[in-house]
């Protein structure tokens, strides 16, 4: 990750000045938005496939169980390799991807027993893995910064502050060895703890150790006072790198396997008969979902990740009939939700409308709310299947229908003379309803009312004939 980050820094400083890059990410607003959008894009695209495969809840399960992968990898790293990985370490990410796959395998095992349906199988498998993770954290992971808030809603708001500093230009890193004059040598009692004795006790034995030996990056060396050369540094938020890499991996995966994902999602049997491997592709998809879930975990916590996968995809589903458009729209809607979500957290709806009071709230939660707002807007207003459009269409159809009932009646008894009163008696409608229908028909010229006598006009005949033809 660090190497990739150096490349990104290199690229960014080519495109803009160092000061501009630093100023860009020092603004909590921009960093939060960049991270949010970088999570929303891959999650939205992958979410489209999850939704269509009936695996919406799988993304929720995976976003929880990645914690187990992270923790297990963390324990292995610290116990056996004496390293201190953080969430952007590739080992933790591999661990997380593994946990995602284990979740899916476990779910499928339970399901294959034939005793449980898929939702129940998920409900059994993922709390188990999550519970294991919680116990491992409590039991084996000390002083690791993993508080409940972080697990709940993530740390996107402080993403700007968690940076790697990259020196720009040729600065040497500084190595301090024990014989260096700058080395600090301290005496440490080797048997005090074991024998429970005071360091002043004559039985205490001491060794000398160097407390500050090691390799220092130019930035660290300057801060520690080992050098007076102050390097030019770019402070690059770690979560931007993680999210960007995950977004690239997911986009590449979808771009390369779009056709395969499409056919195995729509018709796995056809796919298999044509020589595709739906099972292998399914696991590949789960690995990519897990990767994106880890990237998202850091920023938005494990509970809200599912929203990034599913809400934009569901919104896009209402808007289009084409899979490719659904995938693109889902990414766009997710990004919009993440972008405006930041504003909402700071009290501005859609970035402009100020909300009353002192508004300063969870960024990730606000992003989810914003995605939901977009969903509801589309649900109501989508031109094709939106509730408003459907309601308007129904209303129109209902009106046409009552109009035609009345016209049909006039036509059927063409030789009779009708007045409002006789019609009312015949058709049996409320006077107001009858008046409204007559009014509409007269205004459109489909009936003529002549001294209280109601006659169907030529246009009325045409309209009735057209209706009859369209319904048979």
């Amino acid at each position, binding site marked *: 990750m660090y190497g990739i980050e150096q490349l990104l820094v290199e690229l960014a400083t080519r495109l803009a000045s160092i000061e501009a890059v630093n100023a860009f990410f020092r603004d909590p607003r921009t960093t939060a938005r960049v991270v949010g959008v970088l999570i929303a894009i891959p999650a939205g695209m992958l979410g489209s496939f999850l939704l269509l495969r009936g695996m919406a809840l799988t993304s929720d399960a995976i976003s929880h169980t990645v914690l187990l992968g992270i923790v297990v990898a963390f324990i292995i790293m610290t116990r056996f390799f004496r390293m201190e990985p953080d969430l952007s370490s590739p080992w933790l990410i591999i661990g997380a991807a593994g946990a995602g796959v284990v979740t899916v395998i476990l779910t499928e095992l339970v399901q294959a027993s034939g005793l449980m349906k898929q939702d129940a199988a998920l409900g059994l498998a993922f709390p188990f893995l999550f519970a294991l993770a919680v116990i491992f954290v409590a039991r084996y992971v000390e002083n690791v910064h993993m508080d409940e808030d972080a697990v709940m809603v993530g740390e996107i708001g402080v993403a700007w502050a968690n940076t790697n500093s990259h020196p720009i230009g040729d600065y040497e890193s500084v190595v301090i060895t024990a014989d260096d004059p700058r080395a600090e040598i301290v005496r440490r009692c080797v048997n005090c703890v074991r024998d429970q004795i005071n360091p002043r006790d004559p039985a205490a034995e001491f060794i000398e150790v160097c407390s500050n030996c090691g390799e220092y990056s130019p930035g660290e060396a300057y801060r520690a006072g080992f050098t007076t050369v102050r390097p030019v540094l770019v402070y690059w938020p770690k979560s931007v790198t993680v999210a960007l890499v995950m977004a690239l991996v997911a986009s590449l995966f979808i771009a390369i396997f779009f*056709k395969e994902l499409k*056919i195995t999602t729509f018709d796995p*049997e*056809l796919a298999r*008969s044509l*020589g595709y491997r739906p099972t292998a592709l399914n696991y590949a998809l789960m690995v990519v979902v897990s990767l994106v879930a880890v990237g998202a975990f850091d920023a938005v916590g494990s509970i809200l990740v599912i929203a990034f996968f599913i809400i934009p995809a569901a919104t896009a589903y209402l808007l289009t009939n084409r*899979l490719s458009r659904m995938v693109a729209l889902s990414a766009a809607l997710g990004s919009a939700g993440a972008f405006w979500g930041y504003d909402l957290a700071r009290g501005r709806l859609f970035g402009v409308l100020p909300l009353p009071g002192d508004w300063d709230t969870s960024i990730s939660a606000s992003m989810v709310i914003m995605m939901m707002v977009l969903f509801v807007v589309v649900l109501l207003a989508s031109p094709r299947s939106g509730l408003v459009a459907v309601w308007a269409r129904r209303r129109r159809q209902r009106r046409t229908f009552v109009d035609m009932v009345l016209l049909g009646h006039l036509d059927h008894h063409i030789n009779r003379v009708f007045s409002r009163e006789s019609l009312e008696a015949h058709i049996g409608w409320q006077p107001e309803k009858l008046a409204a229908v007559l009014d509409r028909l007269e205004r459109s010229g489909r009936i003529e009312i002549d001294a209280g006598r109601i006659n169907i006009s030529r246009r009325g005949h045409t309209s009735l004939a057209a209706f009859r033809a369209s319904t048979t």
Partner: protein
Amino acid sequence: MAHQGEHNRMTDNNGGGGNAALLALEIEDLTVAYHSKPAIWDVDLTVPQGVLMALVGPNGAGKSTLIKAVLGLIPRAAGSVSVFGKPYERARDLVGYVPQRGSVDWDFPTTVLDVVTMGLYGGLGLLKRPGKRERELAMYALEQVSLQDFAGRQISQLSGGQQQRTFLARALVQDARLYLMDEPFAAVDAVTERAIVTILKELQHRQRTVVVVHHDLQTVTDYFDWTTLLNVEIVASGPTDTTFTEENLRKTYGGSIATVNAIAGGDS
């Protein structure tokens, strides 16, 4: 089969050409089980090239299972399958499959043309997208089933019969030599049924082999020149004249003779 050795020798020179004696489908000792309960049991079946065959049997007889096992969609417990003398894995592009209509999500965001184009995905390599040529072929297949006016429709806005014809077009576009169709006549009206039969006969005319799971015993003799009766095991298989007899039907369907007579009408 008596000519086993001969068939094997002939099938060695691959599936191409118009070799009349070549078998389109050869199944030996095929057993398939779900959870150790056999759905089909030691099935031997040979389908000569160029026949239009009905696969007939009661619900749960294993007809769908047989077809899926041929296509490698479910694992075989025992036995072997060869298509034009080759294992299915090497003869994929020779086979077209029309699944039962209920097997996909009809609310999937895709159009009729798009679904038909999927029939051509087998011939596209990795990273290749279907292009103009594929769309033209798909459009031509849609014309054959008279659905050209529905090309741009979302698939849920089709009637049951139109959905069935979409599947048929998707198989036609593959230009396969052997077609396996699972109940293409389910839930279609008389007009659509006629249209589908015409397409099937046309396929046969072009030397294609077609295997159709069929439930309507009344029409078997009209539509098909070859018949296989299946009920977990093969009851009979051969030309419809000699296979589709009252005796065999009774063996297949069990139950009372009256029932079988009633469903088969006066055909046999």
